[in-house]
């Protein structure tokens, strides 16, 4: 058997394509997103506080003998920050429990990266008969994987706090883990209505469902509506497709879906320790929280994990509620032509539409990340008792009631 035939064997094909996808998603997409988010956070913060923000680090052309550096709006900061952290002294204080101090940042960062494995970054792309989903692993229990893995993220933080052998990190670690487990309940309960409607836990299928029936937060979806109808001014056809897409059930479901979305969004803020729920690192009382004793790469890994968790969380929100990679009028990977350009083969068109779907998904994630940053520089922090009360009394009950309202609507009103 020659090499190319071997590469097309189902298992081996799956193995090498998924290695490529994993590497591209982790190193080509998420790490740049993290780096860009850190930069965006500084820029947006500066904008909100009426400052300029970082604007100097660009291309260091003075090294090559030019008179001036090219500043590029300070975008060089994106690369300069990680390099700086990489070159700093890897200092382990004598007072810490060395082994756990050393592995804690890893344990905090790895779950954030693992969640990415089940996020559908794009539609299924077809190469002839072979279907390649633009995600690492298309598993049926997708969302359960997300919750299971993110529940392991607590260990990194608890261990960092404990192993540091210092008061502030310890307090921060305990607070953080208590907060994370409290909001995990609201997080888990608030998405149940989505699965009641869709009837699957597979992330890709949830997106496909939303592509056909409308996004969870905006359920009024015209059936059979196309761009040509709009271009030709065929208003009768547009009206007919709007009427076909309308149903009483969707209208009734809309309110529970919005509640579900808002509870999930807020619980996600709490899960990722973002303002207004950033008590674990409340700098006025706890210095840096659980990573007070960390420096250089250990600190960088916590930072990376936090922002990667934010990006992954945004990805989950986009997938479940905002239609994932779908956008009205944009074909998915099953399309065989790309604007009718003749020399693009069917697989090329499929791949191009797949990549466009991926761009849409990333654009939605970027919008969510902007929301995270915007909230951070706008709202004050909760007090600890307020935080716990909100999670256990308000969101827990709201999400629970919401589930049964949705279930009742689905049972009583037919589509």
């Amino acid at each position, binding site marked *: 058997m020659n090499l190319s035939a071997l590469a097309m064997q189902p298992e081996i094909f799956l193995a090498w394509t998924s290695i490529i996808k994993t590497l591209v998603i982790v190193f080509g997409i998420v790490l740049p997103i993290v780096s860009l988010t850190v930069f965006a956070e500084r820029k947006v913060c500066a904008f909100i506080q009426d400052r300029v923000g970082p604007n100097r680090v660009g291309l260091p052309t003075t090294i090559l003998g030019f008179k001036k550096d090219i500043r590029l709006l300070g975008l060089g900061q994106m690369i300069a920050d990680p390099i700086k952290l990489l070159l700093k002294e890897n200092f382990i204080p004598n007072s810490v429990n060395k082994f756990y101090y050393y592995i804690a940042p890893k344990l905090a960062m790895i779950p954030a990266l693992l969640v990415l494995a089940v996020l559908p970054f794009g539609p299924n792309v077809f190469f002839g008969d072979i279907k390649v989903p633009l995600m690492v692993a298309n598993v049926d229990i997708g969302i*359960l994987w997300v919750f299971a*893995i993110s529940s*392991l993220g607590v260990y990194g933080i*608890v261990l960092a706090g*404990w192993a540091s052998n210092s008061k502030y990190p310890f307090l921060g670690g305990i607070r953080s883990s208590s907060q994370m487990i409290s909001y995990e309940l609201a997080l888990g309960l608030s998405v149940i209505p989505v699965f009641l409607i869709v009837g699957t836990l597979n992330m890709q299928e949830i997106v496909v469902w939303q592509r056909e029936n409308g996004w969870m937060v905006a359920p009024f979806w015209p059936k059979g509506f196309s761009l040509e109808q709009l271009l030709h001014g065929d208003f009768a056809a547009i009206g007919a497709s709007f009427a076909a897409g309308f149903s009483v059930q969707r209208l009734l479901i809309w309110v529970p879906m919005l509640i579900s979305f808002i509870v999930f969004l807020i619980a996600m803020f709490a899960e990722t320790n973002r303002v207004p729920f950033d008590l674990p690192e409340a700098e006025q009382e706890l210095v840096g929280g659980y990573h007070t004793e960390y420096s250089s790469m250990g600190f960088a890994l916590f930072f990376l994990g936090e922002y990667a968790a934010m990006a992954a969380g945004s990805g989950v929100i986009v997938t479940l509620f905002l239609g994932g990679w779908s956008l009205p009028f944009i074909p998915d990977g099953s399309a065989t032509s790309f604007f009718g350009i003749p020399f693009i083969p069917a697989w090329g068109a499929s791949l191009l539409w797949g990549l466009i779907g991926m761009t849409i998904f990333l654009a939605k994630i970027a919008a969510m990340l902007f929301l995270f940053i915007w909230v951070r520089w706008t709202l004050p922090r909760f007090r600890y008792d307020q935080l716990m009360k909100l999670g256990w009394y308000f969101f827990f009950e709201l999400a629970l009631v919401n589930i049964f309202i949705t279930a009742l609507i689905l049972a009583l009103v037919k589509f």
Partner: protein
Amino acid sequence: MEVALFWIFAALMLGFGAAVIFLKSPVSSALSLVVSFLGLAALFLLLDAFFIGIIQVLVYAGAVMVLFLFIIMLLDLKTERARKINLPAMIGGLMVVVGFVALLVKLLPSFDIAKPALARPVNDVASVGMLLFSDYNLPFQVIGVLLLVATVGVVLLSRKELK
């Protein structure tokens, strides 16, 4: 491939399971138990029991062990390290182990291991759901009562501290 993975994860599970007992530091023991649970979850996945496998991670590794770790970390670990080996407890534990192994040796041959597993379900979350709400509805409600008792028990035990 599956067989190789089975041995890897089984070794992982048993190795860290042994570490739970032999490691001196309670924190290390608890974390070994977490790794052991992850190995067990992988074994469930290898048996096509995806739902159970993931739940193993979600509930045991992600929730129960966090509580364990919480409690251990707030204990005074120095007294734990200084503790002497308790001989009667050792002997008792050893007897339980011997009894358990004897039971396994007696029982295992009666299973027909070569027999293939049950017909594999395509979507095991859905089949769990269907079974749970038709054949096992009463046990499901009993679980609810069990959880209620546990909740009340927890609150009752810590009642003194709450006031």
